[in-house]
């Protein structure tokens, strides 16, 4: 059984039918990427999984447990962490304070200290900027901080919403290699991206989302070779 199982989910914004029956499954230890253009419903999918939006129909389960019995704030302790689109760091707090915030619901001081060390090891740049105010970090550094903070809650499933958005190519490489590192250390990742090229390089499997529907799903290798994907998302004719 997969870790995360999204089955036939329909989500609405008022009258707008944003997700029209989506099914996704993510097995433990995988990186799965969800690619699609602007407005395809990628963010909506993640918000539905993390409980910030309620689907009209369909189910989301983690380890077989139905997630919709929980409120959004309870899901963090169930092991789901989300890094929202556009980074979302506490701009006026320092890097260290942002990270501490990520562990706010935990009580184990030693564990938190360990995780802080781990976070700084994953993102050495943050280590150099512990006391800097997050708002003054560069875009890439803010993305790293948001990811590091999400890791502070020790998630089993990490949801990333367009981590490469607006970043310089060098930083995109760095972010994606860190995503692979995080995954190697045992965290399952669902990655939402418009940058299909990078997303499919690091992912094991992928889904293609178009106007609220999954139109394609396959291993990342096959998707990279798929003519439709090449044309629409990889810019290859």
């Amino acid at each position: 059984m997969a870790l995360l199982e999204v089955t036939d989910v329909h989500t609405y914004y008022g009258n707008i039918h944003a997700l029209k029956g989506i099914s996704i499954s993510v097995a433990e230890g995988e990186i799965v990427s969800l690619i699609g253009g602007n407005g395809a419903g990628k963010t909506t999918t993640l918000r539905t999984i993390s409980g910030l939006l309620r689907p009209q129909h369909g189910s989301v389960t983690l380890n077989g447990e139905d997630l919709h019995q929980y409120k959004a704030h309870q899901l963090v302790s169930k092991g789901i962490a989300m890094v929202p689109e556009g980074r979302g760091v506490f701009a006026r707090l320092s890097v260290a304070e942002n990270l501490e915030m990520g562990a706010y619901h935990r009580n184990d001081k030693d564990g938190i200290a360990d995780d802080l060390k781990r976070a700084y090891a994953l993102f050495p740049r943050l280590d150099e900027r512990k006391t800097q105010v997050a708002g003054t970090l560069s875009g890439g550094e803010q993305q790293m901080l948001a990811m590091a903070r999400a890791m502070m809650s020790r998630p089993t499933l990490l949801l990333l919403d367009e981590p490469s958005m607006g970043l310089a190519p060098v930083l995109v490489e760095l972010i994606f290699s860190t995503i692979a590192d995080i995954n190697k250390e045992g965290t399952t990742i669902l990655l939402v991206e418009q940058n299909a090229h990078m997303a499919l390089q690091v992912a094991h499997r992928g889904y293609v989302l178009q106007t609220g529907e999954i139109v394609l799903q396959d291993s990342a290798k096959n998707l990279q070779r798929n003519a439709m994907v090449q044309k629409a998302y990889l810019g290859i004719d």
Partner: protein
Amino acid sequence: MAQLDVRDAIRKGLLAGVIALGLSVIGMVEAFDQRDVITDVFSLGQLLLFAAPAVVGFLVVKGRDIRAYGPALISGALAGVFAAIPIFLLLMLTLIYPGLRAQLVNVSPTLIGILTFGSGQIVGGLLLTAVMGVLGLVGATTHVIPDRISDPLVLGVGWTLLIGVLSEVLLNILRPLLPRGVLRFLFGTKGITLVTAVILLVLITVGIAWWRAQGRERYQKRIAARSAVQVANARRTSLGAGLLLLLVLPFILGTYLTEVVDNVGLYVLMGLGLNIVVGFAGLLDLGYVAFFAIGAYMMGILTSQGDLGVGGISFWLALPICVATSTIAGIILGTPVLRMRGDYLAIVTLGFGEIIRVLATSDLLKPVIGGAQGILQIPKPEIFGFTILQPQHFYYVILASVFLALFISSRLRDSRLGRQWMSLREDEDVAEAMGIHLVKTKLLAFGIGAAFSGLAGAIFAARLSSIFPHSFNLLISINVLSLIIVGGMGSLPGVVVGALVLVGLPELLREFAEYRLLLYGALLIAMMLRKPDGLWPSPVRRRELKAEEQEKLMMQAEGLE
């Protein structure tokens, strides 16, 4: 560089003059003339009037790096003279058009007397211009003579004047301690005597000069040479001394001043509560007075021995009930505004505050809470057979409450809940994505904040023995919010400092009462310009503002590339 900028001097001078004119025609100068700074020599009104040319004389030279005597003194004097012109014109206008008072009610013969030193409009007006010119010159002179002389002198004058202004407070404190003859020598009828002023000026100036010259160095050497144990001891001693001082304060201050301190204390209590809502959680609440009112009315209903009292129970039993009621009211009023943010939240809470006030005056609730007549005959609290009657007694009740509130606030700030509030304040969306329960977090802020205010209201009711709905107006919410802003958002010492400045000072200078809002406005504008993070900012907030500057600099740097 060392040039004379005539236009600048004239412009700033005129600006100062308009301010002096404004203070005169709104009646402030006349009202403040009632209080002498130096008996029969110099009144507070005159201080207000003549501060303008002296300050502007100082300012026109400041930062212009005029080292040469000539240009500096000329610009100072010029600015001073021009600071007199608006008032001079007013004086001339009163000559041409004697009916002016019909339009400007405050332009009374008394005011004209003050402005002209009692020597008629023309002679007096010229005299005033001359005096202001000289004051401008004096202001400018401080830049020309070496700092080591001018700094102590300026500070000496400043402190002497401040002591003069607050002479009533000093007199109150010293009266029981010193023999009458000495007091009569030191204090005049309405201020310090000229002799005292001169002595103070000399002592303070020489003292500061000595301190600057060598005292500070010696002191720092001694501090640096201390061992860790000595440092710890010194800290413990000063802490103990501070606590002791707080405990004996009512005996030093006497009844009137203790009452002022009591008032400050109640505002500190409310400030600490609102600080949780606004400072910690970032929820702008403008209806905060509602909980103060609820606490007060609850105390009235539960303990009053009049017709409206239902409980007749003791103050101490009623106190927790009042706090609980306010907390519940905080949560109830918080629930409908959970989805609102920023300005909308402010508007809705403003409405709630008004609803409570209207309800209090309404006929609907008159049988329960007395309508406009309020609730009377609220008994003074008793403890072990001792009745808490005097302001000095209430002082200890309030002091204990403030300490409790300070303790709770500081523990909350550093707790998990405090962090949740902080993340809520920083970014609601990120907080939610991080798994923070927004509803619970917000309601806890509203509830705990309301509890402090309810406590203040309950004590307030018992202290006054009666409550009337007009005591619970919007102005209280504004006062409390202002004191938090002035003290520094989210800072606990800031709340105390803010309450002392915004509540304590105006009470000491009762002439201010009428101009209180003017003072608030001026102070808030000055704060936004000079010290936007408050008088005693919290570390986070201080850094935030620095970060914004940094960001601006970074953006400018990027723009240049």
